[in-house]
């Protein structure tokens, strides 16, 4: 009666259960619970776990009670726990309890500084991430029958790891303030500060059952006598003691010179890395193991950043620890196991990777580098094309087909670089027509110049000359010199036509003049008139019978013809 019962339901097996139904605790007060705790273990890749639900109960009344079965669903089945029978007997009478309560102040006085808890640390100042060992000790000068830790320090701001202490309290003696105490180590924790600044180590509370002497409140002589400590009328009482909180100063790690690959490791470490094989086939995995061993915050070590070529498929590392806690120092090793699968054949280089830590002794950063690994990947047994993706349906059909056959027969092989556009023949053949064209062009131009000068001059002077000759002829006409007149008129006409048409005087003939004038588009009437006039002149020159009237007509005709030709040739 009045005592507490701790009740735990545990389900073990791989995978968790669901839908946990506790029994009803009608006859009990539920002080605490359900407190679920999970425990998971991975051994050789197989996961086993256990789940437990804990309750702290206090009976409401005396008697026999049954705690019904709890049920849980696991893999589709419903599991039930066995019912538990509990017998609650009469405890210490409440009246006595009250008395004890009343005596507490008295007991407190009696115990005084004869019983206290103290926490000690191995160093007051340390670096962030450095190990700090905190020891909770109990100091006593009185008999402690039993003790139990009621409040475990939460130790916020630290990552803590319990160190081993003997199960049985081993007592030593220590002198504090001139008094001799028996000292026992209750708890020892390795603490790794997670942040810098002033961190407090939380107090611990224990409940001790101590033997104290009680004074009887009576004036009875015997009682007085037996009140003597020798006949100690001892009583066992529960007494709570608490340690003083403690502060430690945590220094931040130096911010300068932080090497690449530093991830908070503090202590002293060494690194080993090895590949399980140097030669593999495509799609066959290799394992890269990185073992970091030493002392320090091992369990906080992060996997070194492995920068493998993209052709290697990298999986998240498997982490296994081998940690020993002997000698108050956390030491051991942590192994990272990377599984790498080369997807394509070829030489793969795994570049060196860095692991850096802060060396507490040297107070400086140390960077460790792995060697460079060379992995030779041969062609795998699988078809490489199977790995290729993004092939359309049409392409898949094509993949099965064979290439087209080689070319043979009439094949022109040529010397490399010997192509027509670069050859001498090409240049020659392309320059020649240009040169020939311009050569001909200039030749024509020049000839025209030479020839044209004489012809043009005659052409331009034709009118002047003919007018001169006609004036001369007019004189002969006025002077009635018939023969001279006709000669002059004939010469004027011939000369004019020769000059105008560019015909040399030697080539002048009626035929030549006729074709030439026709070619120039002179009216046929004019041509025939001209020719007949010339004929008349030739004829009349040598004919004796002719009058002045005819001479007059010939002269006018010649003048009219010349102006008509002049008009038509323009």
């Amino acid at each position, binding site marked *: 009666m009045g005592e507490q019962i701790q009740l735990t339901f545990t389900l073990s097996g791989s995978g968790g259960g669901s839908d946990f139904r506790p029994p009803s605790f009608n006859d009990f007060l539920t002080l605490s619970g359900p407190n679920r705790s999970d425990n998971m273990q991975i051994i050789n890749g197989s996961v086993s776990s256990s789940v437990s639900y804990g309750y702290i109960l206090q009976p409401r009344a005396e008697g026999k009670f049954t705690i019904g079965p709890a049920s849980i669903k696991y893999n589709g089945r419903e599991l039930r726990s066995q019912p538990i029978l509990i017998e609650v007997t009469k405890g210490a009478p409440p009246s006595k309890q009250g008395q004890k309560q009343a005596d507490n102040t008295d007991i407190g006085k009696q115990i005084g500084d004869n019983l206290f808890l103290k926490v000690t640390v191995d160093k007051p100042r340390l670096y962030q991430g450095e190990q700090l060992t905190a020891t909770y000790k109990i100091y006593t000068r009185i008999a402690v029958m039993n003790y139990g830790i009621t409040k475990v320090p939460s130790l916020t701001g630290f990552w803590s790891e319990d160190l081993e202490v003997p199960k049985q309290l081993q007592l030593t003696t220590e002198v504090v303030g001139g008094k001799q105490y028996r000292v026992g180590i209750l708890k020892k924790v390795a603490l790794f500060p997670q942040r810098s600044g002033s961190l407090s180590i939380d107090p611990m509370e224990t409940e001790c059952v101590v033997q104290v002497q009680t004074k009887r409140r009576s004036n009875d002589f015997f009682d007085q006598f037996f009140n003597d400590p020798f006949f100690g009328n001892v009583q066992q009482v529960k007494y709570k003691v608490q340690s003083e909180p403690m502060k430690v100063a945590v220094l931040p790690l130096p911010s300068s010179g932080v090497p690449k690959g530093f991830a908070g490791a503090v202590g002293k470490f060494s690194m080993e890395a090895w590949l399980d094989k140097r030669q593999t086939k495509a799609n066959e995995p290799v394992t890269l193991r990185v073992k970091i061993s030493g002392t320090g915050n091992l369990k906080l070590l992060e996997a070194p950043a492995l920068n493998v*070529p993209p052709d290697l498929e990298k999986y998240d590392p498997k982490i296994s620890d081998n940690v020993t806690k002997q000698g108050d120092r956390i030491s051991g090793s942590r192994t990272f196991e990377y599984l790498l699968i080369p997807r394509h054949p070829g030489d793969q280089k795994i570049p060196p990777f860095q692991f850096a830590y802060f060396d507490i002794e040297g107070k400086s950063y140390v960077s460790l580098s792995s060697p460079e690994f060379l992995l030779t990947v041969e062609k795998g047994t699988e078809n490489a094309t199977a790995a290729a993706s993004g092939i359309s349906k049409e392409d898949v059909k094509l993949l099965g087909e064979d*290439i*087209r*056959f080689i070319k*043979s027969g009439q094949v022109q092989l*040529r010397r490399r670089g010997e*192509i027509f*556009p670069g050859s001498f023949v090409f240049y020659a053949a392309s320059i020649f027509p240009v040169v*020939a*064209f311009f050569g001909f062009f200039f030749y024509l131009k020049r000839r025209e110049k030479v020839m044209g000068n004489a012809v043009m001059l005659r052409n331009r002077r034709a009118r002047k000359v003919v007018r001169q000759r006609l004036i001369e002829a007019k004189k002969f006409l006025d002077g009635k010199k018939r023969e001279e007149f006709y000669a002059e008129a004939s010469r004027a006409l011939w000369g004019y036509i020769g000059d105008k048409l560019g015909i040399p005087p030697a080539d002048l003939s009626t035929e030549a003049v006729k074709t030439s004038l026709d070619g120039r588009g002179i009216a046929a009437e004019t041509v025939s008139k001209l020719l007949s006039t010339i004929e008349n002149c030739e004829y009349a020159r040598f004919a004796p019978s002719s009058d002045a009237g005819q001479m007059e007509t010939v002269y006018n005709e010649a003048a009219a013809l010349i102006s008509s030709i002049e008009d038509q040739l323009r």
Partner: protein
Amino acid sequence: MRWLKFLAMLFFLQTSFAQEAVIQFEQANQLYRSGDYVRAASAYEGLISNGYESAALYYNLGNAYFKMDSIPAAILQLERARLLSPRDEDVQYNLRLANLRVIDKIEPIPQLFFLSWWKSFIDMFSADGWGMMAVVSLWCAAAFGVIFMLGRTVTFQRITFLGAVVSLMLCALSFTGTFQRVQRERNVQSAIVFSPSVSVKSAPDPQSTDLFILHEGVKIEFMDAVGEWRKIRLADGKVGWLSVEDVRVI
């Protein structure tokens, strides 16, 4: 007269060499037909190292490599064949088949339509063809020009002038085509990746970050060079640097 004889002898020698090369080529083809691709390939390679080339030679060599399952070499030779005769359907088909065996699938970014038109127009004739056309049209233009100058009547001059202009335009076009083709064959700016897998870097420095990875057989284009390093571009527009040792120029 003596130098004429010498020239004739030289010409004869040349043709007899070419004759020998054709015989070697046929022997290599015979090896290919009998399924001895390795020896056929080395025979073709021997012809190439003797200084001969032709689209058919590269094509056959590419086929031999394809049969030997060495895809990057096959692609290299087929690309060379395509350079010499871009419109050959057999070359295009086999190149497509070979490219299917390449691990990386690269989607080419589409070219502007007039650029691709221009390219296929240039592809219409070989360098020799364009060159021949250029020369012939130039002769025509010159001939028309001369006749034009000699012409007397207006209609005759009109016709010859038109002929000269048209053949001059044709001449300019075919000279452009010639130079484009020669340029493309002479300064090849493309290469094929030969290393089984190579990381393309962001800078010409082995320590720089990896941008992406290429596998053998991918065609790349050079853009820039720094020492042993080449700035490259893929058909899909990705740009990066890699060592010249990882590739072979087409």
